[in-house]
C-alpha cells in the first residue's frame, strides 16, 4: 500500500530570527537577586509535517515549508534571603513566565490546518459550538436547549496567560524545611472525560438534573429564555464547546523536611555526612475551573493537534519518600 503522505522534494531550511534582552541584578551582598529577560522569536519557512491536502490527490497530506509563527515572552526570576542568622535562614525564590504566540501564515490560500489558524495563537481549540447573540449570550431554541451553530468555530486556547513557581526553604540548625508551588494561570483543556460524562451523568455538574431553565436568549422571541427542560435532556445535548475548561491550577509540587546529623555524632562513625528526609510530591492540586483529576495531563502528548487534551488518563502521581542519605 502506498504511503498516505506525499513527499515534497522542494523543502528548504527553516529560519529562526530571535532577539533577546536580559538583565541581571544582585543587591545587598546577594541577599536579593533579580533576573529578567524578554525574547521575540519569529520563525519563517516553518516546516509543517502532514499539512492536509485534498484527499482526491490520493494522499492525505504533505510536508510544506511556508509557516510563519511568532513567539514573544518575558521570563523573570526573583530570589531573596529575607532572614539569615546563625541558626535560622529563610530563602525564597519566585519565577514567572508569560509567552504570547501567534500563527502568522501557513501556506498560500490556506488559513487553517486543524488547530492552527492564521492570526490566532498556536493550538487553539476548534469545533462544535453554540450559537450566540452579538453580545455573546447563548441562543436558546423553542425546545429550551442551546442552539448548535451549524458552522464550527474557535472555542478555546491552550496557551496559559502565565506560569509561576514559588520556592521556599527554611533552615533551622540541622533541620531544613522546603516547599515548592507551581501555578499555571489560564490555558484551556479539552476534557474528553466530560464529553462522555455529561451523557452518562457521571460529571459533578450533572448532579443538578431536575427541570431547569437554561440561561440565554430565546431564538423565538429574542427575550430571555423561559422554556423548562429536563436536566438529563440538557446534559445529554452538551457539545464540544462544553468540554473546554479553564485549566488554571496551583499545585504543591514538592514539600520536604530533612534533618542533618551533626559532625559531632558522625565523628565516631565511618560516615562523613548523613541526613534523613521525608518528601511528598503533588500532595495538593487546586483547579477551580477544571473538574477532571488533573489539568496538567496531556493525554496524547505535546504534538501539534493533541496538546492539552485530557482523556481518561491517570493524574500525575502523588508520592511520599523517606530517604536516608549517607556520604563517606
Amino acid at each position: 500500500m502506498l504511503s498516505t503522505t506525499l513527499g515534497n522534494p522542494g523543502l528548504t531550511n527553516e529560519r529562526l530570527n530571535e532577539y533577546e534582552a536580559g538583565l541581571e541584578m544582585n543587591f545587598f551582598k546577594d541577599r536579593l537577586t533579580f533576573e529578567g529577560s524578554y525574547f521575540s522569536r519569529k520563525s519563517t519557512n516553518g516546516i509543517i509535517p502532514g499539512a492536509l491536502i485534498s484527499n482526491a490527490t490520493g494522499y492525505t497530506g504533505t510536508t510544506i515549508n511556508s509557516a510563519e509563527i511568532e513567539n514573544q515572552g518575558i521570563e523573570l526570576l526573583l530570589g531573596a534571603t529575607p532572614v539569615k542568622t546563625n541558626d535560622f535562614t529563610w530563602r525564597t525564590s519566585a519565577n514567572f513566565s508569560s509567552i504570547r504566540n501567534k500563527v502568522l501564515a501557513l501556506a498560500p490560500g490556506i488559513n487553517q490546518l486543524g488547530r492552527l489558524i492564521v492570526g490566532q495563537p498556536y493550538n487553539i481549540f476548534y469545533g462544535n459550538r453554540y450559537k450566540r447573540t452579538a453580545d455573546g449570550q447563548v441562543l436558546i431554541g423553542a425546545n429550551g436547549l442551546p442552539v448548535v451553530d451549524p458552522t464550527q468555530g474557535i472555542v478555546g486556547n491552550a496557551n496559559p496567560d502565565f506560569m509561576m513557581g514559588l520556592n521556599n526553604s527554611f533552615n533551622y540548625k540541622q533541620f531544613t524545611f522546603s516547599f515548592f508551588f507551581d501555578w499555571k494561570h489560564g490555558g484551556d483543556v479539552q476534557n474528553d472525560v466530560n464529553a462522555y460524562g455529561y451523557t452518562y451523568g457521571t460529571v459533578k455538574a450533572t448532579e443538578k438534573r431536575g427541570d431547569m431553565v437554561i440561561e440565554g436568549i430565546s431564538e423565538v422571541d429574542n427575550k430571555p429564555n423561559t422554556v423548562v427542560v429536563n436536566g438529563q435532556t440538557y446534559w445529554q445535548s452538551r457539545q464540544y464547546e462544553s468540554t473546554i475548561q479553564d485549566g488554571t491550577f496551583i499545585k504543591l509540587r514538592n514539600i520536604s523536611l530533612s534533618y542533618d546529623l551533626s559532625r559531632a555524632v558522625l565523628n565516631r562513625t565511618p560516615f562523613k555526612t548523613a541526613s534523613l528526609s521525608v518528601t511528598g510530591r503533588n500532595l495538593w492540586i487546586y483547579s477551580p475551573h477544571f473538574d477532571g483529576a488533573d489539568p496538567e495531563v496531556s493525554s496524547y502528548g505535546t504534538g501539534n493537534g493533541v496538546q492539552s487534551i485530557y482523556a481518561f488518563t491517570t493524574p500525575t502521581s502523588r508520592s511520599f519518600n523517606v530517604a536516608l542519605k549517607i556520604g563517606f
Partner: protein
Amino acid sequence: MSAIMLGGCKKFLDVNTDPNNPTDVQESLLLAPIELNISDNITSGFAQLATQTFLQNIAPNQANPGIYNYQMFNVDMNGDWTTFYVTVLNNLKILNQKAESEAHWNYAGIAKILTAYTLGTATDLWGDIPYSKAFDKTNFLVAYDSQEEIYKTIQSLLNSGIADIAKGDAVKPGGDDYFYKGNMASSDKSRLFAEGALLHSPHESTRSHRCSAGG
C-alpha cells in the same frame, strides 16, 4: 582491491534505498490489503454505519451528541473521504498500472471492477465527486466530475475490466483475492453485481442514464 573497496563503500552508503519501504511490489501484495479495506471501509465503515443510523436500523441506548443523535457536520465524513480516495482508489490505480505494464490482465480487470464499485459507493454518498482530474501529485485543487460523468466512468471501467479478464491470462490471484480466491468467473459476477447496484441506485439521474444507454 581498491575497486572492490570502493564498490563496497558505494553500496554501504546507499541510504536512499529503504529495503523496509519498497517503492514497487507485485500485484498480489497490493490486492489483499485493498480488498481488506474495501470490505472494512467501503462496504462497511463510518459512512455506512451513519446510513444505518439515519435509517434507524441501529441505535445505541445512550450516546453523547453526534451522529447517533442525527447531528452531523461536514467534517464527520472526512475519514471516509480518506479511505475512499487515499486508502482504496489511489492503491487501485497503482495496482491497475502495475498489472497493465506486466500484462497481468486478471489483476488489471479486478482493479478496474473494484474501482468501479468504490466509485459507485462514493457517488451514492456524495453525488458529484473528483475522479478524472484526481490522483495528480501536482494539482491540489482537484476538479469534481458530475455524477453523470462518474456513472459513465463506472460503465467504461466495468467494460474494460471484463475485457481484461476475457483475455484469459494465465496469471491469476490465489489466496490474496479474499473475495473469490482467484475464481475469475466469480469476478465477472461481481461486475454484474456492480451493474445491478447501479441500476437500482435511488438516484433518478442514474436510472435515466441507464435507460438512455439502453441498459
